[in-house]
Structures are given as structure tokens and as C-alpha cells.
């Protein structure tokens, strides 16, 4: 269970990215976060694993206060939260397998990382995760030799290496074509359904939300403007979320 209470983030320039955001995510739910660009979706997801430090408010995950965690506790919390990014964020010049193994960095002893050594079980596990997302044959290629869809699969494999209890997906399909988008979303859905991993996924397209999400929250200028089931978004709600002039497409 993830509880976000009165979360506020004000950036150095005075921009209020999140404004008193409060919501809960039960374990195992697929939650979609929607909203316009700049509405605070990315900031919200990054506050949950403290890539961005919130200005005020609390995030409690399975009874543990993430906002008050020390750097060492944070390391242990982060390794249970996988993250998938819009631009995949792979290390281009490293091999695919190295990118996947990087998911274990929260577990391995930092001293061993100096020598780029991972335990044997991790190597096997990495291959298994690549098989799971269907690109085990690319393991020894450089990450930037892969196509966009393949790179996002590597990103998912990296998140899976963490044995996550929760995955934060920050617009995971926004840089992919519709066909690839569905295949990536299916992977996330499969992880959500089979492994019971909580997924928080920010999305742009409402058809994807309808198809995959259990529940939706919508942000507008840092405030939660809608919270409920995907099918509850009618035309009126849509205009509340996306503004008066918005029109539905797709």
C-alpha cells in the first residue's frame, strides 16, 4: 500500500509542480496518472523514489516513511522500486546485459562494482529477464544499436532485475509507435498481473488508460483533479483534466 499525503513540490525557481497531492494505491493495482505535459506527472513519480526531494508532505509505502528515509534506508527502498522512463535512459555505450545487470546495483556490494563484478546468480537472472521480454539474443549488443521498442524492453528488464514491489513508469510509451506501445504496455500488464507488482504509469492516450489501468488519477497544474475508474472519465471530466479547449482524439 502506497500512501501519498499532502505532497507538495516547489522548484527552486518558485514553480509549484505539485500542490497538496493526496492519494492511495493498494498493493497490486495498476494506476494510471494522466494530465497535460507539465502538470506534474513526472515530478510526482520522481518524488516517490526521491529522485526529487519533495518540499512538503509524506509518502508512506508499506508502513515505511519514504520522505524521512536516510540515504542508506533510501538505497534499500529504491531497490524495491523499479523505474521505466520515456527516453529509456539506457547507458548507450554499455552492453545490453550490463544495462540489465545495473538493476542489481542496489543489492550488490559497492566495492565489487569497482571491478564490474556481479554474482553468477545475477548473470543468470539477467538472461532470464531478457528472455521474459523477448530479446535474449541481443544481450551482447551495445544498447544504442537497439530500436526504440527493444530499448524500452531492456529498460523493463532492468526494472525487473530489482525484484520490484512497485514499478514507476514515466510515460513509457510516449516515444514509441502505437503497435510497440501496446506490446510494452502488455509487458507491464503481465508483470502487474502475474507478479503482483504495483504499477504507477503516467500516460498520454486515454485508450491506453481504458485498456490497461485499474484506476486513474489526473493532475492539472500540480493538483489532483480526478480520481476514479477509467470509464468514469466522461466529456465533462475530460475538459476538467485537459482544459476547456481540448478535444478527444483516438
Amino acid at each position, binding site marked *: 500500500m502506497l500512501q501519498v499525503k499532502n505532497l507538495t513540490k516547489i522548484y527552486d525557481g518558485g514553480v509549484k509542480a505539485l500542490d497538496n497531492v493526496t492519494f492511495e494505491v493498494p498493493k497490486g493495482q495498476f494506476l494510471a496518472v494522466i494530465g497535460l505535459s507539465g502538470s506534474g506527472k513526472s515530478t510526482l513519480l520522481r518524488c516517490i523514489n526521491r*529522485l526529487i526531494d519533495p518540499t512538503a508532505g509524506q509518502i508512506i509505502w508499506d508502513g515505511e516513511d519514504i520522505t524521512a528515509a536516510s540515504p542508506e534506508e533510501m538505497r534499500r527502498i529504491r531497490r524495491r522500486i523499479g523505474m521505466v522512463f520515456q527516453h529509456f535512459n539506457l547507458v548507450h555505450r554499455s552492453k545490453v546485459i550490463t544495462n540489465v545487470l545495473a538493476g542489481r546495483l*542496489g543489492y550488490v556490494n559497492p566495492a565489487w562494482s569497482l571491478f564490474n563484478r556481479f554474482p553468477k546468480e545475477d548473470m543468470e537472472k539477467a538472461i532470464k529477464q531478457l528472455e521474459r521480454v523477448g530479446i535474449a539474443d541481443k544481450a551482447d549488443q551495445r544498447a544504442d544499436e537497439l530500436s526504440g521498442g527493444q530499448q524500452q524492453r531492456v529498460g523493463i528488464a532492468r526494472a525487473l532485475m530489482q525484484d520490484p514491489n512497485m514499478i514507476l513508469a514515466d510515460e513509457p510509451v510516449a516515444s514509441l509507435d502505437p503497435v510497440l506501445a501496446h506490446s510494452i504496455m502488455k509487458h507491464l500488464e503481465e508483470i502487474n498481473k502475474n507478479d503482483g507488482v504495483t504499477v504507477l504509469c503516467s500516460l498520454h492516450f486515454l485508450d491506453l488508460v481504458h485498456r490497461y489501468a485499474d484506476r486513474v488519477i489526473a493532475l492539472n497544474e500540480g493538483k489532483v483533479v480526478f480520481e476514479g475508474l477509467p470509464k468514469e472519465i466522461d466529456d465533462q471530466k475530460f475538459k476538467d483534466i485537459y482544459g476547456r479547449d481540448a478535444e478527444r482524439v483516438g
Partner: protein
Amino acid sequence: MQNKKASPWRSLQVGLTVLLVLLIFAYGFEITDIDLEQLRSEQRQQSLQRVTRALARPDIFEFEKEEQKATAPVYVTCPADGTTPMLPSLDTSVPYAIVTPTCAEPGETVTVEGFNFFPNANGPVRFVPGNDPTNVVELGNDTAQTDADGHFVTTSILPKRPSEDVQFIRATMRRNLGVPRFTETAKITWEKIVETVFLALLATTLGTLLAIPLSFIAARNLMRPVRSPLASMAFSLLGWPIGIAIGYLVVSQIGEISASLTNSIAVNLASVIIAPLISWFVFRWAMPPEELAVPSPALRVARLFALLLAVLVGLFWLFQLAQLITNITLAIRPALGRAGFLATFLFQVSDILRVITPALGALASGGVLSSFLARIGQRVTEKGSKASVKIINIVLSVAAGSTLFGLLGQLIAWLYQIDRPFYTTWGPILTGAVLGLILAIFTRAKETLPVGLVIYTITRTLLNTLRSVEAVIMAIVFVIAVGIGPFAGVLALGLHTIVSLAKLYSEQVESIMAGPLEAIQATGANRLQTIIYAVIPQIVPPYISYTMYRWDINVRMSTIIGIVGGGGIGFVLIQNINLLNYRAASAQMIAIAIVVSMMDYVSSVMREKYV
């Protein structure tokens, strides 16, 4: 863009600018002594001609020579009675020379003709003073060249050496024999150019190795997020000097223990083999590769001590290894013959090992103690109540401030030889304490301070200051420290390489993509792991490129660093220029040009290949 309207004000502006530029350049001419009159001077033109011609004939090859000599008799001042003096008859079957007329006054021009010499040979035709045809001294600067029949004609001005008796003009014709061979100058040039290239190589290696870690702490994007609470900061500041002192004492002690054990080569050999094994197993136990549960405090302490033990054993091993290498090299050096430089290399390595082990140990211990204390400070700040944290902050900040300023005071006392404890000890300690107190009072209890940015700023300032000092000037300092020779050059170029590469590298670190950094952090990686897995893969190509570029610069620099005594080819070059030995200087300049352009080419090829 809209057209600007012509206006008197604008014309005036342009006119004034032109006038200003004119003034600046006029003053520049005055300052830099631009004066073509110098070029027109006859004497300068002659010297220039001589130098240029010498430079055009680099002293690289020479031939085995064969020479023929002949002396032609001549009377300087004709006899007073006006008769033509009788000359001894000449053997015309061998090379011979005759002077016409046979007598003349000093300063008059005579014709010298030679016969039966080697064809197409050349050499000097000079006056031999002192009535003795075997005298080796010759006067004058005339030369002659024989034709295909071995005949030459030249003119010569008689010197002011009047004498009653017969005097001589000697013609020495030389011709080349066999194939050309390298001159002594060429050999020295080769030796020195090799020295130059290796000087540059070592300086680049040294510089690169040290510049890499420096570049990370001089990169804004990596250092900005580094913040820590005051207690942690003060603790880590205190940890450095204490840790360094303890480390130095302990490591020196180990060194002594090690030295007392090295009399027997068997013990030496055994400890070199056994020590790393012990160290390795202890390390393996203390550093499990992967751990899911949080270790208990007791286990943590045990591991800490185990690690300490591993490090101590490791240091002992370093000392033993150094001793073993020394023993072995001393034993085998005579047997190596021409490969003796390998033994010398190993010997020097063992010596370096022995010298830097205590320093490394001290630094490592300082770093470990500092980060350990910093962690304690962090925990105390997290767990303690606001009031108690505030008190701890004040105490620690005062202690750290007075320690820092006290040490700075000692440095100043040493630098300026001030022997007044009030100014160099108590004063700074008090100032530090007050500053620490002020900082602690104005910092909120649990606030984190941007320690990363402070370190970044200090490092950048230091780098920029050092970078502005040219390597040649650094070399002057190092020549004083370690004596004239290539070692001083290596140190000077190395230091300059460190600071300039660290700056270039850190700019590359600052321009990496932030995405992978974020992704690696999100997996729970700590700072070190983030650097290894997200930063380093991104900066390898520019690092290689800059290192090659720097090697290129270092080769060029090392050619002139010898001018101030830093070894390399510059030393002989400046010597030859000062001795007016332009043909040798020319050979060395050609060598420099070849090496530098080759380096240029190689580095551009390698850069293309790797980047």
C-alpha cells in the same frame, strides 16, 4: 534587420573607433620595436645568410674522407732588389699547387692553381704562417673545388705576415669515401628525441591517472547534489588530519616490522605469497557480493575490523613485495647485460612502492576515518532531537573550525618562518572556533549544507590557478627540487597535464546525458556505483580523445622544456644554438618537426578510431 539611419553621431562614433584602433596599433609598434632598418643592415643580412645556410645543411650524415695536401711556396713581400725569387722545383707526379705571381705584398690578391688532385673534390686553400710547410695552423677562409681532371684555380688574399723567407699556401682537397654514416650529432639527437617522446609519455600517463578522479570532483553536475548535515561535515573534516596522522604512524610501524623480517629471503617470499591470500579471504568475508537482509550492528563492527585487518595485511604485503623486488633485481642485474634497464625499472618501482606506501596508507586512513565519522554524524543528525543535534553541531563545528585554521596557521608559520605562536597557533585556532560557532548557530539543526559545491569551487579554483602557470615555469621549480634532467620535466609536464586534463575532463562529465544517471540512481545504486555505471561509459570516448590530444601537446612541450633543464631534446638544442653550432641545431629542429608531425598524425588516427 532594419537599416540604421546615417547620423552625424554615428559617423563620429565610427571615426573615433578608427582613431582609437590606429592609436592602439601605433603604440603597439612602439612597444614591440618594429623597425625594418634592422633587416637592411649589412651585418645582420650576412649573419642571417650564414645561419640560414647552416640550417639548410643539418648535421646528420657524414662520409669517410680521403684527403690530399699540397703546399705552394710564396714570398710575402717581394725581395727588395726587385728580382723574382727562385722557387724550389716541384714534383709534378703528385698533387701540387703553384701561386702566381710567386711574390706579392700583404693584402694583394694572388692566384692559386692546383694540379693532379682528386677529381671533383673540395677543401680549404689557406695561408700557412711561419715559414714551415708542416705547421698545422692555417689562416683565411678560401676554399676550392677541383674539376674532372683534378685541377683547380682560385684566388687568395695574402695576410699581413711579411717575411724574408719563403712561406706557403696549403691546399687540402677532400673527397667522400664509401657510404654516408650518421654523425655524432645525429646519434645524440636520436637519443634525446627518444628521451623526449618517453618524457611526454610518462607525463601524460601520470597526468591522466590523477586527472580522472579529480575531474569527477570538479564536475558541477556530480557535486551539486552532494549535501550533508553540519555534524557530518565537521566530523569528516576532523577525520582527515587525525586519520592521516594515525595512518602514517601505523603504516610506518608496519614498514619497520616488515623490514625486520626481510633478512631471510624465504620469509620474504613466503609472506609475499601468504599475505595476499589472507587479505583476500578476509576481504571476501567482510564484503559479501550481495546481501538482502540488513546486517546487525555487531556484524558490521566485526566486518569493519576484518576490513582493517585485510588492509593492514595488504600494506604489509606491499612492503614485503617491495623488498622482494629489490632483492631479486639486485641479484639478477649483473646477469641481465643489455636488458639491465628492466632490473633498474623494477628496482625503481620497488623504491617508489616503499616511498608511497606510507603516504597512500595515510591518505586512505584519512579518507576512511573521515567517511566513517561523516556517517556517524549523518546518523546522529537523523536520529537525534533538534536540541541535541544543535549542541552537537556547535561542539563539532567549533572543533573542526579550530583544527582547520590551526593547521593553516602552521602552514603559514612554516612558509614565512614566523616564530610567534600567538599569531600562528592561538590566533587561527580562535578564529576557526569563532567561525565554526557562527556557522553552527546560523545553521538550522537538521539542515544539509552544499558541501559538494564547496569542494567543487575549491577544486576548480585550484585547477585554474595551477593551469595558468606554464609547464616551462613549473619545470624551473622541479629542476630545483629533483635536479636537472628528464625527471624534472616529467614532473612539470605531469602536473600541468593533471590540471589541464582535469578541467577538460570535468567539462565532459558536465555534458553527459542526465537520463542514465537518473536511471542508475533509481535502482538504489550509491554515488560510486552511479559514477562507474552511468558516468564512466559515457565519458570514455572524449577521455581517450583528450588524452591523445594532450600527449600531442606534451610531445611538443617536452621539446622545449629542456631549455630550462627539464631533459629532452630542448637541452641540446639550446646548447647548440648558444654555441653557434647551427648545423647541429638544424638536425635537432628537423627531428622535432618529424616527431611532432608524426605524433599529430598518430593521434588523429587513433582519435578517429576510438571516438
